């Protein structure tokens, strides 16, 4: 067992965890957060994106114990933020959500882009969102929503 002292969505978790527990499974099984979804398991699809110290990571390939000393944010933790409200409004108006399995991951990546001061330029957005996969929408509506969210900051 290894020590994990981590703030998750504003709550401190000071625990001993098995060293092979993934952050994704810790969030689900120990904290009960199910808004983050698992798909590819190999750090390609971005459905499991959460922020660790503000940076987007694939929680499916990130050990829980690696988050020791860090601040973790998931979709549940940002619901009351101004950023989230803007994101929700843009995703709704562009109908940029279909099955919704990938959507929280996109929102978390966009939060990092906004924090980073990334531009709303289409080419930049395509590149910075290329680690989030969506099989339903064909991306057009997501990129349009993203341009609105990033452009409004």
């Amino acid at each position, binding site marked *: 067992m290894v020590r994990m002292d981590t703030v998750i969505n504003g709550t401190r978790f000071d625990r001993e965890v098995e060293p092979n527990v993934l952050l994704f499974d810790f969030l689900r099984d120990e904290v009960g957060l*199910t*808004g*983050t*979804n*698992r*798909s*590819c*398991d*190999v750090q*390609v*699809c971005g*459905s499991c994106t959460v922020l660790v110290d503000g940076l987007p990571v694939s929680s499916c390939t990130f050990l829980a114990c690696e988050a020791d000393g860090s601040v973790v944010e*998931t*979709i*549940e933790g940002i*619901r009351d933020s101004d950023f*989230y409200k803007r*994101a*929700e409004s843009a*995703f*709704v*108006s562009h*109908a940029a*959500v*279909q*099955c*919704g*399995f*990938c*959507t*929280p991951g996109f*929102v978390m990546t966009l939060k990092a882009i906004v924090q980073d001061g990334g531009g709303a330029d289409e080419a930049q*957005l*395509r*590149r910075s*969102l*290329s680690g*989030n*996969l*969506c*099989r*339903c*929408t*064909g*991306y*057009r*509506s*997501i*990129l349009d929503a993203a341009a609105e969210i990033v452009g409004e900051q």
Partner: protein
Amino acid sequence: MTSTTRIEREPSVRAVGSSFPRVDAVAKINGSADYVGDLEFAGMLHGKVLRSDIGHGRIREIDTETAERMPGVVAVLTGKDLRDIDPYFGHAIRDRPIVAIDAVRFVGEPVAAVAAETEAQAEAALLAITVEYTDLPIVANLDAALASNAALIHEGPIRPGFAHGLGSLPERDGNVCYRYGFDRGDIDDAASQADIVVEEDYEFPAVYQYSMETHAVIAHHDGGEINMWANCQHPFLVRAEIAALFGFPVDRVRIVVPFLGGGFGSKSYTKMEPIAVALSRKAGRAVRIVNRVDESMVTTRRHNMKCRMRTMATSEGKLLGRKVELWLDTGAYADNGPRVTATAADAAAGPYRWPSVDVQAHCVYTNTGPAGSYRAFGATHLQWIGESQIDEVARQANIDRLEFRRRNLLRPGEEVRPGGRPLDADLIGDVEKAAAAIGWGRERIANRGLGFSVGLLAAGAHPVSTAAVRMDADGGVIVLVGSTEMGQGTRTVMAQIAAEVLGIDPAGVTVHGTDTRFTPYDRSTGASRSTTVAGRAVELAAREVLDALLETAASFFGGVDRDELEASNGQIWYRDESAGYADLVAERFGFVGGELRGHGEVKPHDGGGSYAEGPVFWEVCIAGAEIEVDRDTGIVRVLQTSSVADVGRAINPQLIERQDEGGALQGIGNALFEEMIHTEDGVLLNDTLLDYRIPITEDLPEKMTCIIVENEDGPGPFGAKGCGEGVLAALPAAIVNALADAGVPMTELPLTPERVWRQIQEIEQKELERRP
């Protein structure tokens, strides 16, 4: 209780025809929407499946003793546990055991399953199970399976499944499990008259649907009832199959369907439900199985195919005949292979007037993962082949490819296939729009090509749907309908349909997922049928509620004629007076409470015979594309696309555009790079997203044009008909035709840089040889 002021008679927005925001959007954006993997029940166990690591073999022995004693393990399931039931399922052919009985037929086939307190404990126990096999010869591709001395993957007589809808199934012939064909006219006569003959062999790859969410099911068999929470597209068919398998009456089997994280056909029919139920039966507790991606990739896939096609025409471009032979690889079990085969054969001729046509299709077992439905199946397989031959005929006849379609495409009312529904769409008008959108007729640009394609997909599946609409005492409305919300937006569309009939805002309508205990029967969610067929049932059910409101209002306004009443903006209007729905419900029951309830049903013999003769409607498959090819690397880029959603009436235009955009990107993936690669031993080499690539943001074309055509000619509510699949059949064909227009005709998909580069080298070599 009447009001003559303040309430406007006309609503600000009509329910049907407006891009009403998705009713499920917020829950999905903020992560609160529940998928099967998010659900937990007290005492629930976690199931994991041990899968075969060989492609074909006889099971000598399975040793589970050590695994059974491992920490947290409650039950280990093997074929021996199923001796008291007939453990084979399959809606088309009943060929698939719940868990391997005596043999394994593909790498990844379930051999045993463990239920344990945690997923990690179940996974650890899998490693402690040992299986001894006697190897059998592996036939992991079409050539091997069709060879004259090929090992047989299945023996014994064919057992028809309960829901194949294909008449009497032919006897199995070697590894060919199903055949379908038709011919009309004299194909030899066509051959003797033809000036132009285009004939090629083609190959289409196995493709994975890749819904982001894998297959997942929670099952609880408690001895008296079976309860399931499953991400299935066809809960009512799965319910029937589970009931038959485990010897239960249908009403003792219940399936609840939460949101699906995508389907695209991968979650149609029965998949992981039987093994989850069997494991729960043994464990005596609820069990949850959530596949990992590599497991779902051997649960279902799209059929790979070989095809030989010959198109014959006169030098003036008159079509004389088409001969097609095709072989679809359905893997080790039939799944939906027979239906896919029949649909592929139906799509082979294309929507043209043929004096003669001969199509023979074969569905073939191989030692690979089972293949089933994937969006626009059959049409996607054949349209790129048929339309590339039409383009080539036009080229040889020296006729503009669009003009060639104008002369030869079927017109509304003409026969598509003998005895079936005649053509119900304006194909020429549609294809002209798709071609115009990509700049048809403009000057040629080096290394760029323009292409389009036209096809039809038999849509609607079997038109059996029922639905209920309930209006509560406060005027709120609940729609109970069995369509599965898998991303397409069916809950939103159903709310709009009910709202339109009742003259209310769609925001006042609630649509939940299916719970077979309460939700009326709906055959399935697929074949673009929900809006058209289930939507029609919702419309009829809402009309019954409206009838009750009008009946009560007529007496409420003093016995007036019902024809003088109108429902609008949440009120029943009589001249300038109106009554709210809550007031009318109270009036009807004379006390607090009560509810109005309507029932709607759609049956094959409704709809003026067209439902009965099938298909419910012809889904139009039309798209255009402009591509650019790099002749040094073989890289093909899709610069722009167009697609036509010929929907009769757009219930929600924005959702239609989203369907076409999503389908277009899947079409780009299918055309350019998606391909499952199996070794000769039947091992799937690229079973992760690291090696199996699906489209990403950077694959998006610069421009995508979705053209919505509304001719109000559909059999669904308000003249609607389904959409969302056509573009996936049409766009790969448009891309292939655009690449041929740029000088690189291809006969094998996907159009990987290597394949395209080799073809360019071959063409250049031939040109060099031709020079003096």
